[in-house]
C-alpha cells in the first residue's frame, strides 16, 4: 500500500530519515514510535508529500509520491495532526466538507452526497450533531479532534495518516478517544499509519509498531516483540523508559489483541 525505499531526508547536518525502507501493509494499523526527533513525523510527511525526500522513493498504491503527483494523491490519504489543525474561520461542518465542496458536483460531490457523507461521519465519530455549526474555538479538544478526523475521512480515502492525534488531550479524554479510535479503525478497515511517542498507545492501536531512531528503523513487530524480544539495547531502554511506573500492571499488549489475520 505505502512503501518507502531508501528514503533519506537531511535538515542541515542532521538526518531526519536515513536510507529508510519500510512497507506499510494495507488494511492494518501501523504505529510509528520513537523518541522526539527520531524522524517519525518526517516519515509521515514524506508519505503525503509535504516533505520531498533528498533520496529514495515513496510510493502510494504503486504511484510514486512526488511534487506533481502529491496534490492528487492527497485526496486518497486522510491526514490528521495534533489538535486537528482545523481552520478557525470555518465551522465544524465547513471544515469537514471543505474539500468535497471544492471538488463540487462535477466531480461527484453534490450537496446530497456531501450531506450523506457528513451524516455517516458524525455517526462514525459520535460527534454531536449540533456541534457542526460551531467554530473550532467553541469546541472542546476532543471534539476538535473528531472534526479533524471527519475532515480527513470525508473523501473516503484509502489510507489514514495521523500525527500524534491525541497529543494535545488530557489523559482521561485521551483514553476514551483511544478506545473510540480503535473502534473506528476496525470499522473502516483502512490502512492507518499513526505517529505516537507513547508505546502504550502504539500497542493498543497498532497491529504492528515500528520503532525509529535517528531516521532508521530499529525494530518492527508487535509491541510484545519490542518488549520481549528487543532488537538491541536502545529498544530495551526505550521500553523501560515508557514502562517505569506501570511495571505492576499487565502490559497493554497482554490484553490479548491478536495480530492481523
Amino acid at each position, binding site marked *: 500500500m505505502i512503501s518507502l525505499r531508501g528514503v533519506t531526508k537531511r535538515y542541515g547536518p542532521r538526518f531526519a530519515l536515513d536510507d529508510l525502507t519500510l512497507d506499510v501493509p494495507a488494511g492494518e494499523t501501523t504505529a510509528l514510535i520513537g523518541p522526539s526527533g527520531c524522524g517519525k513525523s518526517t516519515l509521515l510527511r514524506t508519505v503525503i508529500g509535504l516533505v520531498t525526500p533528498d533520496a529514495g522513493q515513496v510510493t502510494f498504491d504503486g504511484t510514486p509520491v512526488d511534487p506533481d503527483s502529491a*496534490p492528487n494523491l492527497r485526496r486518497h490519504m486522510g491526514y490528521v*495532526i495534533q489538535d486537528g*489543525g482545523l481552520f478557525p*474561520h470555518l465551522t465544524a461542518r465547513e471544515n469537514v466538507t471543505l*474539500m468535497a465542496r*471544492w471538488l463540487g458536483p462535477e*466531480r461527484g460531490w453534490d450537496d446530497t452526497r456531501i450531506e450523506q457523507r457528513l451524516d455517516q461521519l458524525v455517526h462514525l465519530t459520535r460527534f454531536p450533531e449540533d456541534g457542526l455549526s460551531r467554530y*473550532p474555538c467553541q469546541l472542546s479538544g476532543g471534539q476538535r479532534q473528531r472534526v479533524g478526523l471527519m475532515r480527513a475521512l470525508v473523501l473516503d*480515502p484509502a489510507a489514514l495518516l495521523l500525527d500524534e492525534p491525541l497529543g494535545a488531550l488530557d489523559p482521561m479524554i485521551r483514553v476514551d478517544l483511544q478506545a473510540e479510535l480503535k473502534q473506528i479503525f476496525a470499522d473502516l478497515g483502512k490502512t492507518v499509519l499513526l505517529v505516537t511517542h507513547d508505546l502504550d498507545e502504539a500497542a493498543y492501536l497498532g497491529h504492528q509498531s515500528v520503532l525509529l531512531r535517528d531516521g532508521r528503523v530499529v525494530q518492527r513487530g508487535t509491541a510484545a516483540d519490542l518488549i520481549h524480544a528487543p532488537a538491541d539495547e536502545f529498544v530495551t531502554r526505550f521500553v523501560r523508559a515508557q514502562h517505569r511506573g506501570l511495571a505492576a500492571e499487565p502490559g497493554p499488549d497482554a490484553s490479548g489483541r491478536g495480530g492481523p489475520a
Partner: protein
Amino acid sequence: MNTPMPAPVTRRPRHHGALALGCVLALALALPPACGEPSGPRELVVGSKNFTESVVLGELVTQLGADAGAPVRHARQLGGTRLLWNALLRGELDVYPEYTGTITQEILAGEDPPAPRPGAGDTLAERLAAHGVRISAPIGFDNTYVLGMRRERAEQLGITSISDLRAHPDLALAFSSEFMDRGDGWPALAARYSLPHRDVRGLDHDLAYKGLEQGTIDVTDLYATDAEIRGYDLRPLRDDAGHFPEYQALLLFRDDVPTAWVDAFTRLENAISAGDMTAMNARVKLDGVPEHVVAADVLRERFGVTAEPAAVETWWTRLRRHTLEHLLLVGISLAAAIAVALPLGVLAARRPRLGQLVLGLAGVLQTIPSLALFVFMIPLLGIGGPPAVVALFLYSLLPVVRNTHAGLTGITPALIESARALGLPPHARLRLVELPLAAPSILAGIKTAAVINVGTATLGAFIGAGGYGQPIFTGIRLDDTGLILQGAVPAALLALVVHGVFELAERRLVPLGLRLARG
C-alpha cells in the same frame, strides 16, 4: 480507491498585477483633465497661480473670453510658475497671467544669462515665440517684489530702505518659498545688500502676514500691489540698490489661441494701474468679495462688458461638487490600489526575495513627501485629476501590500500544512483558507490606506484636481478660516465615514470564527 482521481489542477498564469496596473493607468488617462468637468471641442482654458491677484486677472481673462463667445474654463490657483508654464506648453492651458521678472528670472533663466531689466518686449517675445508662446503688452502695473515691515516697527528702528536692514541682524525674516528659491530671491538679495541675517525662514506668503501681525517675524517679501500693505499697515522698504527686476504684469498665451479670443483678452493691455490692482486685491482679500464679482465690476465699469452672471454656486452646490471630486479621487485611486496591492502582497508572501523588493519599493514611495509626489506626476500626466489619482494610488499601495504580506505570512504553519494535506491546489488554498485567515490584517491595511488617502487627496487641489483641498487652499490664500473649514471639516468627516464604513466591512468580511477566536 473509492474516489475517482480528479483531473490534475493546472496552474493559471499570474498576470493579475500587471493587468490591474494597466487598468489604473487606463482609468487615470480616461479621466477628463479636471476631474468631473467635460472636455469640449475647443475650449479657452485660463490658468491662474495660487495668489489672489493672479486669480483676479484669471477671472478678468475668463469673463472677457466668455464675452467673446468662447467656451471658457478657469483652472484656478494652481501650484506655481513651473506648473503653469509647463501646462501652457503642453496645451492644457491657453493663457495665464505672468510677470516679466518671473519670465526672465525663472522661466527662461536656464536658457541664457538673464537680461538685467528687459523692458523692451521684443527680445522677450522672440524668446517666448521659440516655445510657441505669445505675450501681450503689459497690463499696466509693475508688481515687483518689495520687502515690508510693520510701519510701527520700521519707524521704531528707523528703517526705510533694504540697506537699513544691515544694521539690525537680529530681525526675523520670513519669505515665501518661491522667493527663497528664485534667481533674484533671498540669496541674491542677501548677497547684493550683504545682509547678515541668520533667522530666515520659508513660509507661505499668506501665513507671513499673520506672522508680521503677531510679531513672530519682522520682515517679509511683498508684492507691490498687495492688499495687505494697506490692510496690515505695512511699510515697503525702498530697493535702494535697484536689485529687483521689473515685474510687469502681462498675459502669456499659446500661439494657437484663435485671434478672436486673443483680441478679447488683450483688451486688458495698459488698462489696469497699480492702484486699480491694489484696490481689486483689497476688495477680495479684505472685504471678502469673490474674485469673479470683483472682475465683473471692473469689466463693467471699464469696458462696458456685462459678463453674464457666472452661475453663482451656493454653499451647498459647491460642497456637493467638492465632495464629488474628492470621492472620485479617493474612490478610483483606492480601488486601483487595492486591485494592484493585494496581488502584490500575495506575490510578496509567496516569493520572499521578490517580496522584500516589493515591500522596499512600496516603502520608498511612502517616504516621498505627498506634495512632491503630486508634482512629480505633472510631467507624465499633466494637471488635473489623472496625476492626482496616480499619486494617491501610489501612496495607498504600501499599507495594503504590507498588511496583505503580514497577514499571509503570519498564518500558523500547521494551518497551511493542513490545507496542503487536504489536497487543495495553491489557488484554492489562497482563496478558501489563506485570504480569509489574513482578512483582518488586509482590511486593516485597506482602512489605513483609505483614511490616509482621504486626507492626502486635499493636496490634489494644488495641481488642479479639485476636491476638498480647493476651499482649503483658497481659504489659506484669502486668510478666511470659514473657507478653510469648508474644506477641512468635510474632509475630516469623510475620513471618519470611511473609517466607519471599513469597520462595518470588517464586521461583514472577517469570518465570524476569527472574531470569536479573538474574543
